[in-house]
C-alpha cells in the first residue's frame, strides 16, 4: 500500500516548502531589479501562467495518475521513456550534494548572528572566516570543522525527516513552511517602516516598461519561474504520487505557484527596503549596495540587519528563515531520489534513504572545503542551465506530444476543482518547449564561447560538461537495470 499524505495541507505545504527556497530571497528580487523593476512583473506573470503553472500541472498529474515517482511513472507511458524520469532524479541528486553546503553555512551563521560576528567586513567574514575560501577550484584548502559539523547536523536532520516517510514530511512541513514566511513578513514590515526604505523599494518596484521589449528580460522571467517552482527535478511527480485518487490537481497547482511567486514578491520588499535603509545609513546610492546570491544572503543583508535597532533578533530570525527555507527544499530533493529508487527496485524506505544520503553526504564534503564555493558555483550553473532545462523540454515532448496532452487535460479536469482549458495544451506542446529551447541555446552559446566566471577549463569540464553528459548516460543505465517495481512485475496497467 503506497504511503499517502494525511491531509491536503500537508501536500501543499510540502510543495510550497520545496519550491520556496533561497532563490526566492537571493535571486528573484535582484532579477526583478535588473530587468525593469516593477515592469518585470508583466513577463514574470506571463511566464508563470504559460510555463510554470502548466508544467506544474503536468508533473502533478503524472505522479498522481501513475502513482509512481518519475522513472516508473514515465515507464508507464512507455518503457523506453523511463530514462526521462531518471534524468530529473539524478539532477535532484546532484543538487542535494551541494545544497547541503549552503544549509551548513546557514546553520553556522545562526550562531554568528548572536554576536553579529561579521562586524564591518561581512564579505571578508563570510569568505575568509567562515568559508576559508582558497584561490580557485584547484585548491580545496581545508575542511573547517565548524562548517563540517553544521553540514553533518543538517544532513542528520534531513535523514531523520525522510526516514519517516510522507507522514513525517507532512508533519515537519507544517512548521518549516509557514515559519519562514511569518519571519519574512516580520522582516518586510520592519524593512518598509525604516527610513530610506522608500529609495530601495523604488528601485525594486518602479517600472521601466522599455524592458518589456527586451527579449533577454522575457528569458530572465521564464528562467526565474522555471527555476523557482521545483520543476524538472522529479520532486512534484514524487510528492503527487502520494496523493489519494480523488485529490485535486489544478487548484493545488494554483495555490503552490501563487504562494511561491507571492513569497518571492514579499521577499523583494523585505530585501530592497532594508537595502534602502542601509544605503541611507552608509550615505551611498542604493545601486552600490544591491547584491544577489550568496553575497547578498551571507554578507550584504546581514550587514544591513546589523544596522537596525534590535539587530541580533533580526539577524537570528533571518538565518532561521534561510535554514528553514533550505531544509524543506533539501528534503524534497532527497525524497525525489529516494522515491525513484524505492519504486524501481522495490526497496524499503530505510535502505533507499541510506543509498541516497550516504553518497550525497560524502560527495558533498567537497563543497564545504575551502575551494567548495567555486565547485558549487560551477555545478549549480550547469545542472540548472543544462540539466533542468533539458528535462523540462523532454517532459513536454514525451507527455505533450507522445503520450497526448488531451489525455492529461481530461485527467486533470476529471479530478480538479478548477477546470483548465486548451490554453494548457498550447503551452505544453508549443510555447514552453520553444522558450526552453531558446534558453538552452542561449546558455550553450554563452558557456561555449566564454568560460563561466573565468573558471579554468578543466574545472568547467569536470564540474560542468562531464556532469551534464553523465546525467543521460547514467539515466540510461539505470533504465536498463532490472526493475523490481511490484506493479510492473504483476503487469498491472494503470492506463485508462
Amino acid at each position, binding site marked *: 500500500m503506497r504511503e499517502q499524505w494525511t491531509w491536503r495541507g500537508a501536500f501543499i505545504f510540502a510543495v510550497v516548502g520545496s519550491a520556496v527556497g533561497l532563490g526566492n530571497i537571493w535571486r528573484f528580487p535582484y532579477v526583478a531589479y535588473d530587468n525593469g523593476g516593477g515592469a518585470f*512583473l508583466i513577463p514574470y506573470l506571463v511566464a508563470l501562467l504559460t510555463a510554470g503553472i502548466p508544467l506544474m500541472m503536468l508533473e502533478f498529474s503524472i505522479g498522481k495518475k501513475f502513482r509512481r515517482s518519475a522513472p516508473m511513472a514515465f515507464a508507464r507511458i512507455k518503457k523506453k521513456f523511463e530514462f526521462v524520469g531518471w534524468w530529473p532524479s539524478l539532477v535532484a541528486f546532484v543538487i542535494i550534494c551541494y545544497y547541503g553546503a549552503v544549509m551548513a553555512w546557514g546553520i553556522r551563521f545562526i550562531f554568528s548572528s548572536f554576536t553579529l560576528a561579521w562586524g564591518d567586513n561581512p564579505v571578508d567574514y563570510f569568505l575568509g572566516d567562515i568559508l576559508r575560501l582558497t584561490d580557485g577550484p584547484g585548491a580545496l584548502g581545508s575542511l573547517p570543522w565548524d562548517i563540517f559539523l553544521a553540514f553533518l547536523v543538517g544532513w542528520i536532520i534531513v535523514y531523520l525527516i525522510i526516514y519517516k516517510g510522507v507522514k513525517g514530511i507532512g508533519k515537519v512541513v507544517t512548521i518549516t513552511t509557514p515559519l519562514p514566511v511569518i519571519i519574512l513578513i516580520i522582516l518586510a514590515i520592519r524593512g518598509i517602516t525604516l527610513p530610506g526604505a522608500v529609495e530601495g523599494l523604488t528601485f525594486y518596484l518602479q517600472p521601466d516598461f522599455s524592458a518589456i521589449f527586451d527579449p533577454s528580460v522575457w528569458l530572465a522571467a521564464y528562467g526565474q519561474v522555471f527555476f523557482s517552482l521545483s520543476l524538472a527535478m522529479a520532486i512534484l511527480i514524487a510528492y503527487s504520487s502520494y496523493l489519494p485518487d480523488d485529490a485535486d490537481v489544478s487548484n493545488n497547482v494554483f495555490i503552490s505557484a501563487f504562494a511561491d511567486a507571492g513569497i518571492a514578491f514579499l521577499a523583494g520588499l523585505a530585501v530592497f527596503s532594508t537595502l534602502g535603509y542601509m544605503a541611507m545609513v552608509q550615505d551611498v546610492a542604493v545601486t552600490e549596495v544591491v547584491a544577489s546570491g550568496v553575497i547578498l544572503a551571507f554578507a550584504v543583508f546581514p550587514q544591513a540587519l546589523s544596522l537596525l535597532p534590535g539587530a541580533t533578533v533580526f539577524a537570528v530570525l533571518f538565518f532561521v528563515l534561510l535554514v528553514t527555507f533550505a531544509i524543506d527544499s533539501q528534503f524534497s530533493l532527497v525524497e525525489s531520489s529516494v522515491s525513484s529508487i524505492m519504486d524501481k527496485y522495490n526497496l524499503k524506505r530505510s535502505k533507499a534513504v541510506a543509498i541516497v544520503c550516504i553518497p550525497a553526504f560524502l560527495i558533498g564534503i567537497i563543497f564545504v572545503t575551502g575551494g567548495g564555493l567555486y565547485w558549487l558555483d560551477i555545478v549549480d550553473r550547469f545542472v540548472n542551465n543544462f540539466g533542468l532545462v533539458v528535462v523540462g523540454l523532454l517532459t513536454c515532448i514525451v507527455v505533450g506530444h507522445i503520450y497526448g496532452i488531451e489525455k492529461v487535460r481530461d485527467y486533470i479536469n476529471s479530478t480538479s476543482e*478548477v477546470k483548465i482549458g486548451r490554453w494548457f495544451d498550447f503551452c505544453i506542446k508549443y510555447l514552453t518547449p520553444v522558450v526552453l529551447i531558446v534558453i538552452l541555446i542561449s546558455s550553450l552559446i554563452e558557456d561555449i564561447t566564454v568560460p563561466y566566471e573565468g573558471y579554468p577549463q578543466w574545472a568547467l569540464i569536470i564540474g560542468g560538461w562531464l556532469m551534464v553528459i553523465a546525467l543521460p548516460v547514467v539515466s540510461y543505465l539505470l533504465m536498463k537495470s532490472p526493475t523490481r517495481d511490484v506493479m510492473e512485475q504483476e503487469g498491472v496497467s494503470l492506463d485508462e
Partner: protein
Amino acid sequence: MPVSAWIMFFVGAIILWGGLAYSLRIAMKNKKFK
C-alpha cells in the same frame, strides 16, 4: 515612492497574493481530502 511604483506594487499584490487567497478560498469550500 513614485506613483508607478505604487501601481506595480498593487498589481503584484492583487494578482499574486489575491490569486493565492482566491485559490485557497476555493479549496476551503471543497470537502475532499481534508
